[in-house]
């Protein structure tokens, strides 16, 4: 199994590296002092297993998991037993190791990872609860460790803001650590359209269109020249 280690404490990373070196099937590709660097890595590479510290500044282990579309198997490593219950809410988490980690306990966790059929579970979860074409038509977003449900048709506009996206709904706005590309995959094609590199709009919410912009609620959204033909094609023009 190819794995990575994410922990802001160098001592912890060295210990997990050493534990991994004692298991022939494990190959540590890289370790990371924070989740952001790991996300960049995972955008290019696939791994089978992640050793993930929960308690990290700025971006927790759970925040990290929520950014992954198809998370691999994850073994949490922590000095805090209080997160155990929350960990069980994630299908991808196969075990929970409390530091300092001993070799026998580590080996048990690896055995669980090998036995786990997590990929299938994640696939099922994705299809049943996150796919907007399902009956619920719901999307869950992670805000401060809370999963908040959004009714997809109530979304007006989604705007890219660096490493974050701003989701504007009929009632409320939400800032989420994600990308337009990721959320675009969760949205129904017949309702949403990317009209600009920084904007996805709900075409049912358009009030009017003027040259290179559309008005949705009180927002004027730019429409790039290349996306305008597709937008016009989607409209029921008289």
């Amino acid at each position: 199994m190819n794995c990575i280690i994410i922990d802001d404490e160098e001592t912890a990373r060295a210990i997990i590296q050493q534990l991994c070196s004692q298991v022939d099937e494990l190959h540590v590709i890289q370790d990371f002092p924070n989740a952001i660097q790991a996300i960049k890595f995972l955008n290019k590479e696939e791994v089978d297993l992640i050793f993930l510290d929960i308690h990290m500044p700025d971006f927790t282990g759970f925040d990290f998991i929520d950014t992954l579309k198809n998370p691999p198997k994850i073994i949490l490593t922590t000095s805090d037993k209080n997160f155990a219950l929350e960990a069980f809410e994630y299908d991808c988490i196969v075990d929970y190791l409390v530091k300092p980690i001993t070799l026998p306990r580590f080996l048990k966790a690896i055995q669980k990872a090998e036995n786990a059929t997590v990929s299938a579970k994640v696939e099922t979860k994705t299809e049943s609860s996150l796919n907007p074409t399902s009956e619920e038509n719901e999307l869950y977003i992670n805000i401060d460790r809370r999963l908040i449900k959004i009714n997809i048709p109530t979304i007006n506009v989604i705007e890219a803001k660096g490493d974050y996206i701003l989701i504007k709904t009929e009632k409320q706005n939400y800032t989420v650590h994600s990308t337009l590309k990721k959320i675009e995959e969760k949205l129904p094609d017949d309702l949403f359209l990317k009209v600009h590199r920084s904007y996805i709009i709900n075409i049912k919410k358009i009030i009017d269109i003027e040259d290179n912009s559309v008005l949705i609620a009180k927002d004027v959204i730019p429409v790039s020249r290349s996306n305008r033909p597709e937008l016009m094609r989607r409209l029921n023009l008289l």
Partner: protein
Amino acid sequence: MSETPNLIYIKELAAGSVVFEQKLIGIVKREFPEEKKEFLNNYATNAYSKAAENVHKLKHKIGMFGYEEGYQTAINFEEGLKDNDPSLYSKFMLILESIEQFLKTI
């Protein structure tokens, strides 16, 4: 405080590898004073929430050096700081100082 630091965990982990043992001790020698300093700074400015995060990190090293009661003290102190209760400070500092002295001998 009756507990004293030891290398049992690190030696078990090293499984005979002196290279790893020395590497890990080197990392701890570098990381521990930094974490302690950050904790003391936060504690001195009454930034108890941040100090609790520092205790959380230090807790791992306290466990690594074989403390059991001390580890529990760290857990209680971390929780206390989150509730603005610093009453275990002196007890916690004794553990840190004991580790600090121990690191000078290895």
